[in-house]
C-alpha cells in the first residue's frame, strides 16, 4: 500500500526523517518495499512567468515565448500548448531536467529554426495527473524562480507491504497508530463531527442476509454537485496510486485509503424501492464498474433494489447506479460483510479489488458510524447538498475479546525480557485496554489477535525483534545416532556411486505431458493435475525415464549427442484410500557413445543393453541389494526393446530394476536417435540389509590353497540362455565350484544350425587338501551332466 509522508503526518505528529520512518516501519512488520521522492524527480523544474508570446515564424501551432525564470535574462522557449500566453505563470523545465513522464532529458535545441531553452510542462508530463490539454497554469501569486518541487510541496511516498493479518493497517490511519506505538511520534485521533441531518432517510434499507451482511448503514445526500475533488485530496490519492475520477468517487476511495474502510455511493436517481442486502439468485447478472458482466449465484451477497442488483457486496459496485458527473443525489452505503463470504465470492468471480482485500481480511466493525460521518462531512464540504439521517439495518459484530495475559509469556515465547509497565505501555499504545489484573481487551478491529501469543507478538514487535538475543539450543545428551534414515543413506550411497561411475545427476520436473505419463504408466493409476501450468506439466511422472530422455533430447539439440544422466526421485501413483503412493526410484539414461571415436579404438562405440545392465548391477550392489541372487527375467515394459531388455528380480515377483535398450517407438516419441539405453531401479523393492545391526563382519580366513580353473566348451540349443547354462554348471558342486564365467559365445561356421557354442571357465576352490585327479574328474563329469540337462553337449 502506498501513501505520502504528508498524508501520514495528517494522522501522526512527528519530526522523524523519512529514513527513520522507513526503518521503524520495517522494524514493526510493515515492510517498506519502495520509497519514492517526487521532489527528486522534479529537480530542474521551476516556477516561471511568460513575459511575451509570439507566433513561431515557421510553424502554425507553435509559439515563441520569452520566459522569466527569476534570475538572469528571460529565456526563449518554443511551446506548442494552446493556453500559453503572455502574463501566465507555469512550470519550466530547464536543460538537464528529466521529464518524469517519459524519462527524457531536456536539452537546448532548435525547434524549426528557433532556439528553445527549456520546456513549459503539462500536468501529465510531470506525472501529476492525466491532464494534457495544455501547460500547467499556476496562480498569480506563485513566486517566480522558486523550485517547483518546493512550490508544489511534493511529498515522499512510501510503498509498504501490509501482511494479510493486518487489515487495520490497510489505511494510513492504522499505520500512524502503529508508528506512534513504536515511538515515532504522536497519534492524532480524528475528530468525528456530528452531521446535521435534514430529515429521515427517504430510502428503506434492509438486510435480508444477516449472515453475509450483518450490518448495513446508509443515508442520502441530496443536491450535490459532483465535480472534481479538491487538489489536496487528488494529491493524496495520486500518491497512493489511485486515479482521481470525480469528487464522490474520490471521497469513497479516500475513506478506504485513509481508514481502510470501503464504502459505496449509489446514484439515488437510479434506485427504485427499498435497498436490500440479500443473497443473489442463481444466474442473476450484474454489469460491474469494470464494464464486465458477472453471473452470480445464491452463495453471494448483493445489494439490490426492486429493479435488480446494484452491488456485488463488498467487492464491486454496478455500472447502472454508479455515480457520474450529472449525479445530484446519492445514497451512501457503509456495511459490514462476512469476511469469508467475501473471499469465496471474490475467488469464484475471479475479481480482486481493494474493497474485497479489506473486507475479506476484516474491517473495523466499530467504524461504521464514524466512517459514514467522515464520508458525509467530506461530501457536504466538497460537493454541497443536504444529508439525511442515518438508517441502520442490523448490527456489526463488535463484541470485544478479553484475554488473560501473563506478561512472563513474553520472555518464555519471545526470549526477551521486557518490563511489565513497558509491555502495558506498548499494548495501550496499540489501543488494547489493559486491566490491573492483566485482563487485556482486544480492539474489535484486531481480528488477528486470538490469544496470548498474539499479544507477545505485539509487545515484541513494537519493543524490537532486534533486541532478541541468540540463545544456544541445549545439546542433547546421549549416544550419537545417525540422523538420516536407512532410505536416505541408501540414496546418498547411490547418488555418489552413480556420479563416481561417470553419470551426471539431473533434477527433472515431477510432471509430464499426459501422453508421456501414460506411455510410461505400465497400467498404474496416474495423478493428473486439475490446473496445470501447461499441458506439458500435467501428469505426475510414473517413471523417471521420460524426464531424463527429455533432457537428453535437449542436450542432443544443443549438439551434445552423448548424455549419461541419472536422477534419484519419486514416481507418483494413486495408492490405497486415494492417498499418494510415492516410490523412491533411480533412473539412468545413456544416449550416444560409450566410447567416442578415437585414435586408439577407431570408431565410436554406441551404448548397448549391457551398459544398462552394468549400471543396474553396480548400483544395485551399491544400494546393498543381494546381486548374486538376482534373476534376469523378461517384461521390462513396452517402452523397451522386447529382445534387448529385462528385469532383475529377487524371486519371481519382486522387481528390483529394469534395464535395456529402448523401443524404437519410445525413441520416436522423444525424437531421439539411437542407441538409447536405460535403467530404472526401484529403491523401495530393495530388501533391507540382513544382519545390519552390528559393525563386526562375519569371520573370514582366506583359503590356504590356490583355486584351479577348468574350461568347458558346450554346444547349446539357441533358446537356452547362458544364464541358465551357468546356473546348471555352478549347481554341479556348490561347495567346490566358486565361480563360472562365460568367456566365449559363438554362432556360425562349425556350429550346427539352431545351436550356439558357449565356453565356460569354472573355478574350483580346494578346501584343506588339494583336489586329486579323480575328484577333479568327478566334478567335471557332474558339470557336463548338469549342462546336458539344459540340452548342452560337450564339444569334442
Amino acid at each position, binding site marked *: 500500500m502506498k501513501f505520502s509522508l504528508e498524508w501520514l503526518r495528517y494522522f501522526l505528529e512527528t519530526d522523524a526523517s523519512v529514513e527513520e520512518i522507513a526503518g521503524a516501519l520495517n522494524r514493526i512488520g510493515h515492510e517498506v518495499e519502495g520509497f519514492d521522492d517526487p521532489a527528486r524527480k522534479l529537480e530542474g523544474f521551476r516556477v516561471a512567468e511568460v513575459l511575451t508570446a509570439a507566433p513561431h515564424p515557421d510553424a502554425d501551432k507553435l509559439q515563441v515565448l520569452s520566459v522569466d525564470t527569476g534570475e538572469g535574462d528571460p529565456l526563449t522557449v518554443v511551446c506548442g500548448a494552446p493556453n500559453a500566453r503572455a502574463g501566465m505563470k507555469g512550470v519550466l523545465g530547464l536543460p538537464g531536467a528529466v521529464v518524469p513522464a517519459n524519462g527524457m532529458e531536456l536539452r537546448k535545441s532548435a525547434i524549426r529554426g528557433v532556439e528553445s531553452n527549456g520546456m513549459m510542462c503539462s500536468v501529465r508530463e510531470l506525472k501529476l495527473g492525466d491532464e494534457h490539454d495544455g501547460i500547467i497554469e499556476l496562480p498569480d501569486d506563485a513566486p517566480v524562480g522558486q523550485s517547483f518541487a518546493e512550490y508544489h510541496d511534493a511529498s515522499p511516498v512510501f510503498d509498504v507491504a501490509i501482511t494479510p493479518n493486518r487489515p487495520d493497517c490497510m489505511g494510513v490511519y492504522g499505520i500512524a497508530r502503529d508508528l506512534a506505538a513504536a515511538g515515532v511520534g504522536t497519534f492524532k485521533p480524528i475528530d468525528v463531527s456530528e452531521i446535521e441531518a435534514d430529515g429521515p432517510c427517504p430510502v428503506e434499507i434492509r438486510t435480508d442476509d444477516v449472515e453475509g451482511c450483518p450490518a448495513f448503514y446508509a443515508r442520502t445526500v441530496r443536491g450535490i454537485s459532483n465535480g472534481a475533488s479538491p487538489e489536496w485530496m487528488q494529491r493524496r490519492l495520486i500518491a497512493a496510486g489511485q486515479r482521481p475520477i470525480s469528487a464522490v468517487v474520490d471521497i469513497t476511495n479516500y475513506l478506504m485509503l485513509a481508514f481502510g474502510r470501503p464504502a459505496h455511493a449509489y446514484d439515488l436517481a437510479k434506485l427504485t424501492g427499498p435497498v436490500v442486502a440479500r443473497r443473489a439468485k442463481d444466474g442473476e447478472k450484474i454489469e460491474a464498474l469494470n464494464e464486465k458482466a458477472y453471473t452470480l449465484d445464491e452463495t453471494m451477497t448483493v445489494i439490490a433494489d426492486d429493479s435488480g442488483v446494484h452491488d456485488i457486496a463488498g467487492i464491486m459496485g454496478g455500472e447502472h447506479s454508479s455515480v457520474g458527473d450529472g449525479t445530484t443525489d446519492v445514497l451512501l452505503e457503509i456495511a459490514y460483510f462476512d469476511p469469508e463470504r467475501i473471499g469465496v465470492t471474490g475467488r469464484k468471480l475471479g475479481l480482486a479489488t481493494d474493497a474485497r482485500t479489506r473486507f475479506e481480511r476484516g474491517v473495523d466493525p466499530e467504524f461504521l458510524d464514524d466512517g459514514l460521518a467522515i464520508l458525509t462531512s467530506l461530501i457536504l464540504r466538497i460537493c454541497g447538498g443536504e444529508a439525511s439521517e442515518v438508517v441502520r439495518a442490523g448490527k456489526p459484530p463488535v463484541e470485544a475479546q478479553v484475554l488473560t495475559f501473563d506478561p512472563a509469556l513474553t520472555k518464555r515465547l519471545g*526470549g526477551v525480557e521486557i518490563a511489565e509497565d513497558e509491555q502495558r505501555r506498548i499494548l495501550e499504545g496499540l489501543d488494547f485496554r489493559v486491566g490491573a489484573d492483566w485482563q487485556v481487551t482486544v480492539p474489535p478491529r484486531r481480528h488477528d489477535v486470538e490469544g496470548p501469543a498474539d499479544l507477545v507478538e505485539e509487545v515484541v514487535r513494537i519493543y524490537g525483534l532486534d533486541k532478541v538475543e541468540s540463545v544456544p539450543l541445549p545439546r542433547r545428551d546421549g549416544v550419537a545416532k545417525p540422523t538420516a534414515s536407512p532410505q536416505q543413506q541408501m540414496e546418498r550411497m547411490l547418488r555418489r556411486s552413480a556420479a563416481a561411475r561417470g553419470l551426471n545427476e539431473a533434477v527433472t520436473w515431477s510432471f509430464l505431458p499426459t501422453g508421456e505419463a501414460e506411455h510410461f504408466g505400465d497400467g498404474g493409476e496416474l495423478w493428473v493435475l486439475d490446473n496445470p501450468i501447461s499441458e506439458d506439466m500435467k501428469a505426475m511422472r510414473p517413471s523417471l525415464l521420460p524426464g531424463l530422455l527429455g533432457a537428453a533430447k535437449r542436450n542432443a539439440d544443443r549438439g551434445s549427442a552423448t548424455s549419461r544422466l541419472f536422477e534419484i526421485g519419486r514416481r507418483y501413483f494413486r495408492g490405497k484410500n486415494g492417498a499418494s503412493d510415492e516410490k523412491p526410484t533411480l533412473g539412468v539414461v545413456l544416449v550416444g557413445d560409450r566410447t567416442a571415436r578415437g585414435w586408439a579404438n577407431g570408431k565410436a562405440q554406441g551404448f548397448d543393453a549391457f551398459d544398462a545392465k552394468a549400471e543396474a548391477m553396480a548400483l544395485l550392489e551399491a544400494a546393498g541389494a543381494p546381486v548374486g541372487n538376482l534373476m534376469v527375467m523378461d517384461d521390462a515394459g513396452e517402452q523397451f526393446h522386447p529382445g534387448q531388455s529385462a528385469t532383475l528380480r529377487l524371486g519371481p515377483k519382486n522387481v528390483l530394476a529394469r534395464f535395456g535398450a529402448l523401443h524404437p517407438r519410445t525413441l520416436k516419441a522423444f525424437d531421439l536417435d539411437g542407441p538409447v539405453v536405460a535403467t530404472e531401479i526401484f529403491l523401495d523393492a530393495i530388501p533391507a540389509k540382513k544382519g545390519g545391526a552390528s559393525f563386526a563382519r562375519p569371520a573370514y580366513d582366506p583359503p590356504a590353497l590356490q583355486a584351479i580353473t577348468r574350461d568347458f566348451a558346450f554346444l547349446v540349443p539357441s533358446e537356452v540362455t547362458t544364464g541358465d547354462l551357468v546356473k546348471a554348471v555352478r549347481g554341479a558342486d556348490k561347495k567346490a565350484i566358486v565361480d563360472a564365467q562365460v568367456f566365449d559365445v559363438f554362432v556360425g561356421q562349425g556350429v550346427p544350425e539352431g545351436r550356439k557354442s558357449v565356453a565356460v571357465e569354472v573355478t574350483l576352490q580346494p578346501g584343506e587338501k588339494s583336489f586329486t585327479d579323480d575328484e577333479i574328474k568327478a566334478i567335471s563329469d557332474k558339470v557336463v551332466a548338469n549342462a546336458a540337462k539344459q540340452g548342452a553337449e560337450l564339444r569334442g
Partner: protein
Amino acid sequence: MTTAQALRDDALSRITGTSDLDTLESLRVEFLGKQGSISALLKTLGKMSPEERKEQGPLINGARTEVADAITARKEALEAEALDRRLASETLDLTLPAPQAPQGSVHPVSQVMDELAEIFADLGFSVATGPEIEDDWHNFTALNMAETHPARAMHDTFYFPDRDAVTVPASSSEAVGEKRRMLLRTHTSPVQIRSLVEQGAPIRIIAPGRVYRSDSDATHTPMFHQVEGLVIDRDIHLGHLKWTLETFLKAFFERDDIVLRLRPSYFPFTEPSVEVDVGFAMENGRRVLGGSGDDEGHGWMELLGSGMVNRRVIEFAGLDPDEWQGFAWGLGVDRLAMLKYGMDDLRAFFDGDNRWLAHYGFSAFDQPTLSAGVGAKA
C-alpha cells in the same frame, strides 16, 4: 708367435668386428666349439711332454679364456644394442590423449541438501520426509489456514480434480469422514504436522524436498526445493530460533560474520512470525553474505520466513500447546545453492544440460563433512 697366440689374435679381431649375434655364435663354434680350433689345440696338450705342456698349457688356456670372455662381452654389447634398437622402435607419441573415464557429477540441489543434513545433524536434527502429493488438511488447515483463509489463495496451488479427494478413514485420529482435496504441497510445512503426529515431542527435524507453486519466471519455477526446520520442546523461544539460524548459516557459508536481522511478519502457522534478513555486500557484482546490512556498502536480503509455531498447529498435531512450544522455518534450497555457489538462473537447475551439470555439479567425492567444511570450494 705360437699357434695359440695367432689363433687368439685372429679370434679377438674377428669378434670385435662382428655386428650380429649369429656371426658371433659361428665364431664361438669356430674357435671354442667341440671341433673348434682352440678346442683342438687344447686337445694337443695331452700328447705333449711335461716340459712342453708346462710352456704351452698357460698359453693355450689363456687364449681360450680370453676368447670366451671376448665373446661374452661382445654378446652383451650386441644384445644391449639390439634392445636399444627395439625400444627405439617402440617409441610412443605420448602427447596423444590417454583413455578417459567419463566424469560424473552430483547436482547442486543434492549437494546442498547433504550439506544441510550434515550441519543440522551436529545440532541434533533428524531428516524427515513426507508426501509431495498432499491433502489440503495437512498443507493448509492443520497449518492454521482454514478453507476460506486468504493466504490459501496466495499459495498458487496445483490441485488435483475433486474426484481425487480423499475421505479420512475411520482408523484416523483426525476428522473421520471428512473430504479432503488433493494437491501438490506448496511448502514443506505439512511434514511438521506428519512428524509431530508420528513422533510426538520433543522433536528436532529438518525436512528437505520438492514443493510446487503455479508460478514461472526467471526466479520462480513451478517446482522447487525447500527445507523445513522444526524444534518443539518445553522451553524453546525466539532466542533459540535466532541462534539456530545464525549457527546454521555460519556453518553453511563458512563465515563468522553472518549477521541476521529479524523482522515481524505474518504466517498463519507461526505466532509470533519472523522474517529473517541476512546482511550482504556486493563483490564483483554478486551478493556475498556477511556483515551487517546497515554497514556502508551493505544491504539486507530476505532469506526465510520463520516463527514460533502457532498454538493451533500444535493442537492440530495432537499435542498440548501449554506443554509444548517451539519454532519452525522454511527456506529455499535452490536459493541457498545459488547464493553459495554462484548460479543465476533457477530454470537451469531443472534442464539437465550436460554442460551446466559438469560446470556446477560436484564430484562424487565431495561428500560434505564437518571436519573438512561442508562446502566444496570452486
